[in-house]
């Protein structure tokens, strides 16, 4: 399952705990928001890297946003890569930033695929309660 592969941390479980009858699909909705918003951020990051002279301040700010929303849904690998990226921005290391961006794009694509499969699987196994119990 997705959590054991290290893509998601405890935060994801905390979000699942918040689901109830009034918000049964809360996690899926939040994840959908993240997956809709993050490509835009990645694209802005890519554009900013391509500019000359480099605006590391803006780059750091964009990566900070991505790190924030990623960590809010428990996307630990993305969060960690964002931290590395921010360190490169701080060092004004353009090559490091480029490498980080490529890594992040790959992480993002993998995460998206895994999350989409996860929710699809949850829908297939039936009511939310059964799915949660089977993981315990």
């Amino acid at each position: 399952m997705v959590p054991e592969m290290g893509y998601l941390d405890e935060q994801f479980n905390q979000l699942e705990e918040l689901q109830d009858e009034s918000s049964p699909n809360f996690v899926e909705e939040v994840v959908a928001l993240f997956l809709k918003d993050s490509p835009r951020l990645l694209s802005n990051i890519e554009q900013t890297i391509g500019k000359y002279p480099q605006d590391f301040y803006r780059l750091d700010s964009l990566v900070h946003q991505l790190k924030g929303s990623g960590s809010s849904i428990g996307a630990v690998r993305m969060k960690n890569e964002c931290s590395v990226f921010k360190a490169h921005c701080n060092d004004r290391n353009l090559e490091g930033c480029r490498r980080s961006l490529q890594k992040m794009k790959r992480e993002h694509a993998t995460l998206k695929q895994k999350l989409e499969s996860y929710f699809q699987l949850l829908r297939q196994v039936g009511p939310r309660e059964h799915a949660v119990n089977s993981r315990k």
Partner: protein
Amino acid sequence: FCLFLGVLFYSVGRPLANHPCIYKTAASCCHLAQLIKLLTCQPNQQASAPSIPLCCLCPMSTTVQEPPHVLAVDDSLVDRVVISRLLRSSKYRVTTVDSGKKALEVLSLGHESVQLIITDYCMPEMTGYDLLKRVKESAELRGIPVVIMSSENSPARIRRCLDEGAEEFLIKPVRPSDVSRLCNRAIAAMPMR
């Protein structure tokens, strides 16, 4: 008059002391006049009394008080949705805005209805710290507790915010336990300001 107050306090306060919310309010309420106001309130007056926690059932009223109203400020949509859910699951009413500027607009329209402000630190144009300063500099708003959230665990930043009057500084991602703990504390602490 003091004897009267003493008798009033004793006769009304004693039975009410068993009510969990009133007891908490009475314990944190250092001003006797505020206590009397709370005990003799009418529903309409309660709604307009900004410094008294509205989390409890007013003994003199037949209506249940509304849950505390929290204003959440964050420029990230994902974070607004998460914090909103966290607060609602702790039974608070929430209004979310995406900037400090909008937060001040909401507050200018009806600050009496806001019992707590929870804001992200890093926001464009007006940071959470700037918003905190504006709130604490305002005679009307300074009584509202402000909590800052940030993904950066910077002691200097934390110190700065607490010195400026922030109730608490939370490291993101914010947990359900953080939210319910701080809301209860922050709202209960309001009469002390």
